[in-house]
């Protein structure tokens, strides 16, 4: 049964992508097809998880080649659990994107490209989770990265190209380091099969082992955005379309975390670099969250919390105990769901408020109470407020750290608690500014006509040379700016001083509002709202998808007992290593 199902999470999206490309001219067919494919993947993944949890790990050798030669896909509890979560958020994001696409009329995200690329991305993620040898893991990474390059630069606007170039170059570098590490591993052991490596790597000299382990860890750490190697993430993620950022934030970094788990448990269980990882985890948590507190743009805040909370998972991995790994696995599941949901909510906020800059937003709680709830619940979940899964995950990790008892784990426990509090500070600042305070001036009101109305009818016209320079760039519609042909003459000041003062006050208020606005709208650098696109009510599909995702993150609390049980058993398998090796080589005879 498992042998039939295992290749499907990779195969279905790839075939689906091909079909989606073929039917690119029929958006409706394409949407239905993509959603059907991902639903099928989700069903298969759930079945795999239930089977793997029931009967343990199993390996499938593709193409009928004998095991160390052919490509092996391995399903154990960890990879099946990751598959389920990935397919769930993938499906949620896809439905959200469909809602956004039908609301926007494809103006920002050309959907005929989006759907196939998204499916390829999901195939790459599934391949990385299932890969049983290092080179197949590399290929999985390349599939998902290539798809992500396309998704990140979708539409090809200047800010996306700028962000995309940073992302592409950094990802390429990490891929090259990974490939070089594979070459060295092969030179040292003569195999790239992970189960075989688990047997052979231990025989190598310590120095060689350390070199290979650190090269693999560096490559994966770049992908997982662990502190000294995390600077690329907040630069590149926020500019992409909302669904793309959501799926990137949820899945891509976690593939790196998954690979680190495999490296640290299956390939190099000696724990030679655990101390280094601990320090990296502490730095990731604290520096990441300090970045989040300093930012004023919602998406960037979320990007920094994403970096910061990777530190929790690395902490659990570095503990290298069953409890620590179980906490890390649970936290990965929680964090994929919560970070994706929050980025989807950020997309809704941008739609409702016209911006994600917290300085410019205001009064969202009054404007859209539903949106406020949709933001508040996952935000509290992210910060780790008790009834939610964030609290359970953090508690599990902190308990594992305390149980370890060394001074370094205890320092990390303290760092984790501080990070949790600072997360609360960061998200509550967003809450109080964007949602709670009275509405800021909406950008739509800032047109030259409104400014002229402020100035009052008594005011005499001035020549064009005195036109306020600050108003032009934020105009709602540029057609109102008078051209040279309609130059009025300077007349004597007819209005009284009081009228002028009132007019000047109003003009000042507008002037400061424009001058302190954080988003240069038209110069192609900022993310200014598109002129001429009025604020519309939130599309129902997007809201309901986000609501379902929020409900899922809340439901994580309800199934936390079962989920933590699976995570526990997965962690026990990882520490034991034998289930994985025996699934590939039945009987445990490693050639």
């Amino acid at each position, binding site marked *: 049964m498992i042998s039939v199902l295992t290749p499907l999470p990779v195969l279905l999206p790839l075939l689906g992508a091909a079909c989606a490309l073929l039917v690119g001219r029929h958006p409706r067919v394409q949407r239905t097809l993509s959603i059907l494919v991902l639903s099928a993947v989700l069903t298969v993944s759930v079945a795999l998880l239930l089977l793997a949890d029931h009967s343990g790990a199993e390996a499938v050798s593709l193409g009928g080649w004998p095991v160390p030669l052919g490509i092996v896909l391995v399903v154990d509890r960890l990879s099946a659990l990751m598959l389920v979560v990935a397919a769930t958020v993938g499906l949620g994001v896809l439905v959200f994107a469909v809602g956004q696409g039908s609301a926007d009329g494809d103006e920002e995200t050309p959907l005929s490209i989006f759907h196939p690329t998204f499916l390829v991305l999901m195939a790459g993620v599934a391949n990385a989770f299932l890969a049983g040898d290092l080179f197949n893991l590399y290929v999985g990474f390349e599939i998902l990265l290539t798809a992500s390059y396309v998704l990140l*630069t979708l539409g090809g606007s200047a800010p996306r190209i700028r962000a995309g170039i940073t992302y592409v170059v950094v990802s390429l570098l990490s891929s090259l380091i990974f490939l070089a590490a594979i070459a060295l591993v092969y030179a040292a052991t003569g195999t790239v099969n992970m189960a075989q490596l688990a047997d052979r790597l231990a025989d190598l000299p310590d120095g060689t082992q350390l070199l290979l382990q650190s090269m693999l860890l560096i490559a994966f750490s770049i992908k997982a955005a662990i502190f000294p190697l995390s600077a690329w993430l907040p630069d590149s993620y926020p500019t992409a379309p909302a669904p793309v950022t959501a799926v990137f934030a949820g899945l891509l970094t976690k593939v790196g975390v998954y690979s680190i788990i495999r490296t640290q448990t299956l390939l190099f269980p000696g724990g030679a670099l655990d101390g280094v990882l601990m320090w990296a985890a502490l730095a990731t948590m604290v520096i990441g969250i300090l970045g989040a507190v300093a930012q004023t743009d919602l998406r960037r805040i979320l990007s920094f919390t994403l970096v910061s909370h990777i530190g929790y998972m690395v902490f659990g991995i570095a503990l290298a105990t069953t409890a620590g790994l179980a906490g890390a696995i649970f936290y990965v599941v929680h964090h994929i769901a919560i970070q994706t949901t929050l980025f989807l909510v950020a997309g809704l906020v941008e739609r409702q408020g016209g911006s994600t800059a917290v300085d410019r937003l205001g009064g969202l709680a009054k404007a859209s109470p539903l949106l406020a709830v949709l933001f508040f619940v996952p935000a509290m979940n992210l910060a780790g407020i008790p009834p939610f899964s964030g609290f359970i995950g953090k508690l599990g990790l902190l308990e594992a750290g305390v149980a370890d008892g060394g001074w370094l784990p205890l320092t990390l426990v303290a760092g984790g608690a501080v990070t949790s509090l600072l997360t609360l500070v960061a998200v509550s600042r967003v809450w109080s500014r964007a949602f709670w305070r009275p509405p800021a001036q909406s950008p739509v009101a800032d047109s030259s006509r409104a400014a002229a109305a402020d100035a009052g009818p008594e005011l005499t016209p001035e020549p064009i040379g005195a036109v306020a320079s600050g108003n032009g760039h934020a105009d709602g519609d540029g057609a109102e700016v008078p051209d040279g042909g309609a130059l009025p003459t300077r007349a004597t000041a007819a209005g009284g001083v009081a009228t002028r003062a009132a007019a000047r006050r109003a003009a*000042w208020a507008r002037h400061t509002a424009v001058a302190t606005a954080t988003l*240069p709208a038209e110069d*192609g650098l900022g993310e200014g709202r598109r002129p001429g696109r009025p604020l519309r009510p939130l599309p129902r599909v997007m809201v309901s998808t986000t609501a379902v995702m929020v409900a899922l993150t809340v439901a994580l609390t309800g199934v936390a007992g079962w989920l933590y049980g699976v995570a526990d058993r997965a962690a026990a398998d990882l520490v034991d290593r034998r289930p994985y090796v025996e699934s590939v080589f039945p009987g445990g005879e490693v050639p």
Partner: protein
Amino acid sequence: MTPTIVLPVIIGGLYAAGVYLLLDRSLTRVLLGFLLLGNATNVLLLSSGGPAGLPPIIGIAEPEDMSDPLPQALILTAIVITFGIAAFVLALIYRSWRLVRQEVVGVDEEDRRVAAREGMDADELDPDDLAPEDRPAAHADSLHGGGLENDFAAEAALARRYAGIASDDVDLPPTQRRTR
């Protein structure tokens, strides 16, 4: 069997040149650096297969005398991936050139903005900290009295200081909407 020195030297040279180019700001050089690094890694993969031997598969050699075919298969895969991504990066560079007439690694403006911020956001500014003429409007808890008188004082100060210069924010343009 004597180990060859040629491959390690080539690998080292390619890596050095690749890293040097990758650190440049010009995107074309970054791409060239990436290509060199990719080739260096491919040669590294090739040399990981051990000493060269007779061709495998075609059946003219005993298995002991053959080259290891696996690294070559890996290199083929890696070459295809590198090729595809290089084409994509070229397209990115071209697009960047079309859009902003430059092909260098861009600056993240939001980063600069946050770094340059002086500890406060616009909505945290206390009007009392500003010079009178910079205060946008009177507000209830102003230390300076506030109200219309204060505004008049600011107006007068502005008028004195900038006598002869057309004001830029008051005398707004005519309000008729242009007919189209």
